Every structure is written in C-alpha cells, then in structure tokens.
C-alpha cells in the first residue's frame, strides 16, 4: 500500500512523485508518459541518519544554549550585586529636596528613614527600581511636608488650618 506524498517537480517533460511503501521510499518519474520507479531505500536511510544527526545537533545545541543561559543569568546576578554595592546612595537631588522641605528637628531622621527604605528596596527590587521608588516617596512627601512648613510659620497657621478644615484635608 502506497500513497502519494510529495510532488517534487512538474514541467512539460517530467513529473516526479514520491511514494512511500511499507518499508521503502520510491521516486516515480514520468517522462513523456513513460514511468520509471527508483528505489530510494538507501537514500531513505541516509535521510534518516541525517535527520537523526540533525536531531542530535539540535539537542546538543539546546543543551549548550541552556548552559550558556545559566552562566549568563549567574553573571547578571553577580553584576546586579556589584551594581548594588558600588552605589548604595539614594538620588542626591531627591535627598536635597526632602531635606529642604523637612521640619528642622526631623530633617535628618526623615532622610535616615528614606535611606533605610531605599536599602530595603535595593535588596528587594534592585538599585534602579529603588531609585525610582525613592523619587516617588519623596514626591509624595512634598505636599505634607510643605503643609507642615507653612503651618509652622505661625502667621499662616490660622489661615492654613482654617482652609484645611474647610476642605476636610
């Protein structure tokens, strides 16, 4: 029992058909209406070997690729560690802003707390994201700290407090 598997070429002069028997592969060539059958069993074996080699190669390549990826990941982690330890300081401008707006008696404490959170974020998320979070924390602190500054100025206190109570903030 055989079936047509592939049509290799077709033109005016030649038609090729590949047929697969139970144990062999045949090429049926038609030339001007005359057919000739070529047994490709040997070639089939050869193809199988090539496919086998190709599969082996793929497997080997996959393994090598996997090993390289593992090495690369290890190096990346090492680089991140080095990156983290090479500069553990929060963004200078953000520190300046926080210090500028903080109440006088709590300025250093606030910077210390922000730095402690920064160090914790560095370990959890890496330095780049920790810097972004530091900026985010500082910007979110601007409103309350400015409000505290104004309140502490005394003259503004009554007006600000009145306004705050009016808007329910």
């Amino acid at each position, binding site marked *: 029992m055989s079936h047509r598997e592939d049509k290799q070429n077709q033109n005016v002069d030649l038609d090729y058909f590949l047929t697969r028997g139970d144990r062999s592969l045949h090429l049926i060539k038609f030339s001007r209406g005359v057919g000739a059958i070529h047994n490709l069993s040997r070639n089939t074996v050869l193809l199988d070997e090539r496919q086998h080699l190709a599969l082996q190669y793929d497997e080997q390549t996959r393994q090598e690729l996997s090993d390289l990826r593992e090495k690369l990941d290890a190096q990346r982690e090492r680089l991140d560690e080095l990156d983290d330890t090479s500069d553990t300081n929060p963004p200078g401008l953000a520190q300046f802003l926080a210090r500028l707006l903080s109440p006088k008696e709590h300025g250093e*404490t606030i910077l*210390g*707390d922000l730095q402690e959170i920064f160090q914790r974020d560095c370990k959890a998320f890496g330095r780049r994201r920790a810097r972004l979070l530091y900026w985010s924390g500082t910007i*979110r602190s601007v409103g*309350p700290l400015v409000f*505290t500054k104004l309140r502490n100025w005394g003259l503004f206190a009554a007006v600000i407090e009145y306004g705050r109570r009016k808007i329910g903030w």
Partner: protein
Amino acid sequence: MPDPIGQLEQHVMLAIMRKQPAAYGVAIQQELLERTGRKHSVGAIYATLDKLQKNGHVVPRQGEATAERGGRRKMYFNLTAKGQSALQASLNAIESLRRGIRLQGAMR
C-alpha cells in the same frame, strides 16, 4: 476636653502603641500598611508626628544610628499621658457614634 484628633493622627497613635518600644517612622509606616492597607508617605507620617508632638501627644526619643540609614539616628516616639487621653476620647467618640448601627455586610 482633649484636643480633637484626625483619622491619620488616630491611626499613627495606635501604630505607635502597637510598635512600642520601637515606634519610629519606617516601623509606623509598615504597621499602617499592614493594618489599614494604606501606604502613607514618610512625609505624611512625619507631618502627623510633628503635629502630635507640638500638641504634646507624643514625645520623641533619640535612637541608634545604623549603617543602612547612612549613619543617621532613628527617632522613636512614645505617647504621652495627654496623647493617650486624647486617643481614648477619640475612640470613645467613634464607639459612641457606632453603637447601635448595623452596617450592611457587617455580619458576613
């Protein structure tokens, strides 16, 4: 009659009591996040602490400096007797208002 205190002040005072004797800015922030689900900025917490301190509700105490804080000292906070009294009055007022009210979903 003690000074009225706001909701954030109330929360901060309760967090201070929970974190005794190590209630400082980061610990208070973490406690509020865990208990209320709200992440307040460090600035908001210190603005509240500043107001509570000026009203005599809390008293600061210098703590130790650590390397991860860049050598800066922690500032621990304790509630004063006046602060505890104000907090108690505030909680009593809420409890008094809440008593007898059944909220939808409260029995789930």
